[in-house]
């Protein structure tokens, strides 16, 4: 028996090399294939958008869909399949989640710049809408969803990671974005009113934060969603419940 562990030395702190190998291991374990697929889809869509010569308001809907696809796929980077176990490990709680949050934020922001960048190729500047406005929109979205996922994921005793909550919320956003323009009163037909869009975003961000905090703080809300299926079975005699 080799007690090959730092835990035999209770005073041990994580060395720099330890932190690095841990960070690399956590980054490696993230759900990269789904995110890669999301980036591929999003860049494809924004490339399609860039083929429009019409300008920003023609490109905007496609770019929005692209950003949603990207964000949804990035949410999968938060999902820890083994969360119930890893959260009880010395470096599985706070440290692991911080690394996830950091890595996810970084690749998400890079991805959305890529999408917006490709989508704004050859954008006529006399339209009055510049790529920076797409960037603002994209980053607002990234920020909101990261905030939700981060809050849920960093809450110590949550047994569902941020992914589920963020995916739900993002789907709601996607639905509201995909509504026909006529049903979106904050957008004047034929012309994107960026100030209105941004004002709306602040409202959405506030509501989103509210829901995120409720998810973390109010146990019944989580219990309702997460474990409603896990019902106790009466012990059947003589097999005593589950046969195994």
């Amino acid at each position, binding site marked *: 028996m080799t007690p090959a562990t730092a835990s035999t030395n209770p005073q041990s702190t994580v060395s720099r090399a*330890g932190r690095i190998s841990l960070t690399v291991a956590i980054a490696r374990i993230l759900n990269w294939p789904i995110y890669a697929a999301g980036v591929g889809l999003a860049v494809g869509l924004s490339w399609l958008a860039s083929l429009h010569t019409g300008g920003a308001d023609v490109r905007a809907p496609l770019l929005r869909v692209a950003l949603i696809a990207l964000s949804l796929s990035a949410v999968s980077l938060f999902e820890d399949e083994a969360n119930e176990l*890893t959260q*009880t490990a010395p470096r599985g709680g706070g440290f692991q989640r911080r690394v996830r949050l950091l890595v996810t934020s970084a690749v998400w922001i890079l991805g959305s710049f890529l999408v917006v960048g490709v989508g704004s190729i050859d954008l006529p500047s006399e339209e009055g809408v510049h790529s920076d406005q797409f960037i603002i929109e994209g980053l607002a979205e990234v920020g909101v969803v990261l905030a939700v996922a981060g809050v849920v994921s960093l809450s110590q005793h949550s047994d569902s990671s941020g992914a589920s909550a963020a995916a739900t919320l993002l789907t709601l956003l996607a639905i509201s974005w995909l509504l026909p323009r006529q049903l979106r009163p904050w957008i004047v037909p034929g012309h994107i009113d960026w100030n209105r869009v941004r004002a709306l975003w602040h409202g959405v961000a506030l509501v989103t934060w509210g829901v995120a905090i409720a998810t973390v703080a109010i146990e019944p809300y989580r219990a309702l969603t997460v474990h409603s299926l896990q019902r106790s*079975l009466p012990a059947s005699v003589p097999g*005593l*419940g589950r046969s195994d």
Partner: protein
Amino acid sequence: METLVVESVVKSYGSTLALSGVTLKIAPGVTGLLGPNGAGKTTLLRCLATGLAPDSGDIRIMGRDPRITSDLLEIRRRLGYMPQDDALYSSLTCFEYLEYMALLKEQFNRAARRAHIDELLAEMGLQEKRTSKVRRLSGGMRRRLMLAQALLGRPQVLLLDEPSAGLDPAHRLHFRSLITTGGESRTVLLSTHVTDDVEAMCDAVYVIDRGLVLFQGTPSQLSATAVGRVWISDVRTEGGQVTWRTGDGLYRSVGVAPDGATLVNPTIEDAYLLLVGQAALN
């Protein structure tokens, strides 16, 4: 000296009361947590594994309070936990999985870590699966991998949630020997609804149902609670609290004496049925 102390712990999920004031004191050795599905075993183990905070009550693990941040880290360093549901990464190999878990458990010395993992894989009979993807493992192999993970670093406290579920008889025996040879100083708390497991390896047993402790003592004390309350007859008769047909064609009843039945020596299972059945009737 008790390693695990649980004092009036209450935990509810919304309107479901999973633990309604549980008090336990667990010393080194193997202790069984026996109870039907939904009794609160998993909830209690998750609280002890620091994965879930109780609503009220106190928990002390090796004298430390998990609510204090520095204590929490020290507890986690000495704890091995095997959840009821497999917590695996399907795209990793067995070795990669254990290596990841070992890193989360601060085993940063690469050579020592790898030797330790190979040793555990061998103990679990998984050396041939070293480079197999987790998704290709059978249910029993997954359970063994989960047990290997819990044993990483040879922790002083092992919390095992239905560890023998899904194991074939040979591995179940092997697993019992692995758990019971953990050393005198190790504290093992395992949940099960299989009375045989308790009989085979536990020094102490707690029976819990509906979030309450119904019994605490040794396995033989548990079976003694049913003395004079277990009968055998060759025809099905009414009157027993619980009656079932056994493999040899006889009817076994616990609780109230059926007409014309013979009194027999109780097993742990009889005592357990009596306790849990009574709780269900009250």
